[in-house]
């Protein structure tokens, strides 16, 4: 009888397509929203992900996420290095700075000062360059950080560093090696471009050495933001973090835990999460609306046949199973179509550098939403079948 139910459904093309549309829409939008959320969350901890060699991040005890730094005293570095199980520990400075472009424009950058000796913290470079370019005096590496068109300098040399009025509306080109910027009236030179993971929210990045960062940033009593520690062989990162916390009274988190902390903070505090939830809710509501109405119409249109089946001895349970089977088929195909569409849309989105990442939970959430919508729609449409009297079909009452 399941097959009969499915053939009944497939025989009514219009409603079948309508049902598929509703469920595909739900599946697509929910999975897409979840993937977009996954992309945003992944980008929120991009600085951690850009440092895969770091086992433990050490920070001020009040820091709860990578984007909420509070600087440490310089002595923190030595204290961390002194903890047993630490193989190496290097400083990392993170700050905001406004850079002046040669035509007079200002652009806010996240400045990341990496250890002068090891250059730990510099992501992969474009054009086969290496982080060693930072060893030149005043050298910086720039990165779009998920933005586009924000690192533009005048195309013509005559428009660069003009005397008198700034040349704000002149033709521009992207920064290249050799271009210069001013940070707090200190001239720095672009020595390369990196391929850092895009940030969320997107922002241009400027990598330099720790000492250059100290020189070009506005003076602060504390410049050190994080201490990046690696564990000695056979030392577990989480155990080492606990040991550092105990010895230094600073906050120490393994990379994995720090990512989780950051995501948790984003979920609680980011307005974009609310947007994603709104998108999910709308997707569910519209999906349920379309699917529920279509399923109800389909069942109502077929009520006569359900009455005939009931008269011929089909139990209520069998009839409900048939309706559930119809909903299940739509759910299965709709989920597949929705996920496929989502994959295509995701491909397009990532091509344009939007935050999109289909993690394991995205199709799971999409599937759960589809189950919820389908079961809801089926339950909604079961009502007339449950209230149906086969005799009323015969007697017309």
């Amino acid at each position, binding site marked *: 009888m399941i097959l*009969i139910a499915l*053939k009944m459904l497939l025989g009514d093309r219009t409603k079948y397509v309508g049902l598929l549309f509703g469920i595909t829409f739900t599946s697509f939008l929910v999975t897409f929203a979840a993937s977009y959320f996954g992309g945003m969350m992944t980008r929120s901890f991009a600085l951690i992900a850009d440092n895969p060699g770091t086992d433990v991040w050490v920070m001020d005890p009040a820091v709860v996420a990578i984007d909420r730094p509070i600087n440490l005293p310089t002595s923190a570095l030595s204290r961390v290095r002194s903890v047993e199980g630490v193989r190496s520990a290097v400083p990392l400075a993170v700050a905001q700075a406004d850079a002046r472009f040669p035509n007079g424009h200002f652009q806010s950058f996240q400045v990341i000062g990496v250890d002068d000796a090891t250059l730990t913290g510099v992501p992969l470079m474009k054009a086969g360059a290496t982080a060693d370019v930072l060893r030149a005096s005043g050298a910086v590496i720039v990165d779009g950080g998920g933005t586009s068109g924000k690192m533009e300098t005048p195309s013509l040399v005559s428009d660069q560093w003009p005397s008198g009025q700034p040349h704000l509306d002149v033709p521009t080109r992207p920064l290249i090696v050799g271009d210069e910027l001013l940070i707090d009236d200190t001239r720095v030179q672009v020595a390369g471009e990196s391929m850092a993971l895009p940030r969320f929210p997107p922002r241009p990045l400027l990598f330099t050495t720790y000492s250059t960062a100290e020189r070009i940033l506005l003076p602060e009593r504390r410049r050190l933001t994080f201490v990046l520690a690696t564990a000695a062989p056979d030392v577990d990162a989480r155990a080492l973090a606990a040991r550092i916390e105990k010895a230094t009274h600073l906050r120490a988190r393994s990379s994995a835990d720090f990512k989780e902390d950051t995501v948790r903070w984003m979920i609680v505090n980011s307005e974009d999460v609310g947007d994603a939830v709104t998108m999910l809710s709308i997707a569910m509501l519209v999906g349920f609306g379309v699917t529920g109405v279509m399923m109800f119409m389909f069942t109502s249109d077929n009520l006569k046949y359900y009455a*005939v089946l009931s008269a011929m*001895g089909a139990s209520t349970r069998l009839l409900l199973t048939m309706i559930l089977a119809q909903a299940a088929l739509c759910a299965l195909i709709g989920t597949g179509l929705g996920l496929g569409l989502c994959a295509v849309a995701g491909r397009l989105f990532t091509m344009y550098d939007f935050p999109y990442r289909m993690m394991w939970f995205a199709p799971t959430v999409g599937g759960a939403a589809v189950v919820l919508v389908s079961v809801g729609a089926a339950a909604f449409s079961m009502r007339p079948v449950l209230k149906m009297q086969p005799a009323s079909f*015969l007697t017309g009452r």
Partner: protein
Amino acid sequence: METHAEPATGPTAISCHGVTKTYGVGNAAVQALRGVDLAVRTGELLMLVGPSGCGKTTLISVLAGLLHRDAGECTVLAHDYEKMDGPETTRFRKENIGFVFQSFDLIPALTAAENAAIPLLIGGAKRRPALDKTRTILKTVGFDERMMNSLPADLSGGQQQRVAIARSLVHNPKLIVCDEPTSALDSQSGRMVMELMREFARGQDRVLVVVTHDDRILEFADRIAWMEDGRIAKVENGPVRAKVPATQS
């Protein structure tokens, strides 16, 4: 006026006394059955005839266990629906009753064979054996392979009704109730359908109760029960009985 004529055939299959049924309450109440007395024996084809609204369809709904009666006694194949719960009644219908509806009510998305196999599938039969058995029955009503695999929309009214008849017979029921089985058919198709039904009733020792307005098919009845205003006004032998010896009727 004869109100309760009984044929001289097999044991009583249906026995009703004083059956009443009212729809609605208060001012909107409509008394559809006002004390129906009826007995039908196995092997008999009984036709219920009467004007619209006289209670024919209500009566077959009560006989088929689709409607509860308000009062009176009624046993069908030695079962009283009022002593059975819902699932038991449904199971009883599944095993013992076949239906032929006025508008055929074949499911449009299913082939003729699938439509006719539905009672077997409801009964839990596997699809393949159910379809095989159905094909045999459909052959007896004149269907070839192509017609068996046709959708109802591709069949004529007479062919659709033959599918409906095959559907009512396929699970070997003891009682078949038919509601205006020939009303949508031309004269020739109607005769063919009734010949099939007649054959089934006589040959298989079963009971057929047919509601009809169609005078053309009265000649197939063993007995004809005339209903008026919710009661059996009279029951008389049909032309079939009149033509055969009493021992066979």
